[in-house]
């Protein structure tokens, strides 16, 4: 698991889904059951931007990049250990 994956997993578990009894891992589909709503997507994007030091353009917020924590890390984690 990459550093970004691990930090994303911790962020989603502790900050976005709290309090929650939903068990998630890096391959859980984040949007299928309404886990992430319109406010949480902004927090998630902000977290990735802070972690990577890069802005994410709106056009890159598509399902193929954001389906799971693993796909987010793969798309936006270039250069991070």
């Amino acid at each position, binding site marked *: 698991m990459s550093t970004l994956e691990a930090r994303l997993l911790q962020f989603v578990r502790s900050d976005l889904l709290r309090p929650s009894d939903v068990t998630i891992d890096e391959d859980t589909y984040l*949007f299928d059951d*309404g886990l*992430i*709503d*319109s*406010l*949480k*997507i*902004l927090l998630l*994007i902000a977290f990735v931007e802070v972690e990577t030091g890069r802005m994410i353009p*709106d056009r890159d*917020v*598509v*399902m193929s990049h*954001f389906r799971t924590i693993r796909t987010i890390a793969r798309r936006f984690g270039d250069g991070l250990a």
Partner: protein
Amino acid sequence: MTHGTAADFVTLGDGRALLRGSTARLVRWFDDRFLQMARQEGALECRFPATIAGETLARAGYFEAFPHGATALGAGAGSYYLPPAVCYHAYAMLAGTRLDAPARLTAVQTCFREVDRPALTAARLWEFTMREAIFIGPGDWIREERARWAERIDAFARDLGLSGSRAPAADPFFGGVGRGRHLIQQLKGLKEELRLDAGSDTVAVASFNLHEGFFGTRFEITLAEGIAAHSGCAAFGLERWALAFLEQHGSKAAEALIGV
């Protein structure tokens, strides 16, 4: 600004348009086609009131998504609006019911978008006519229904020789939080639009929408299992279909199409 011949698509400069002759018949021809498609699917044809209760729009979250989107009837009245879309009536009609089977409905209505008033082009009017096919049921079924409508309308446009393309749309149709709402909609592919070429621009003639369980929850429409129904709709801007056809093929082709 006019389109077609004999000045028969006349924009009045205040977001309204006057259509006559073969252009008026062309709009009716398109509506007949969409109605026929909906009927073939077994849709229940409905005729909704010309106005909509503010209570219905509030329950649908309309004012959260579009704070100044609807045209109110009379200052202080607060209770009735000109309808910004057709399908809100359908959810109000089914409010509090449990569906034994998926429901299909269709209706046509003059709709109004306050944000487009006064609009100065034929492509973006304050007052326009919308035919909707509305489907309410389980989520998987709704997604299939939306896909089938989109493919059917793609083929319909292609058969008419109309050039354009279908793509995800960015404008939101229900409540949330500003940019977040827009991004969630984009992420989930909840809205697609068919845009046809019209002169130097393109015009959105149809949209294919998924609402997930948003309206089912708001209006307490449930499935047999007791869970909130999902909904979706296909919406057609009838004047825009006529406009795109006239821009691409001209009035002679329109007259041939409608059998003048």
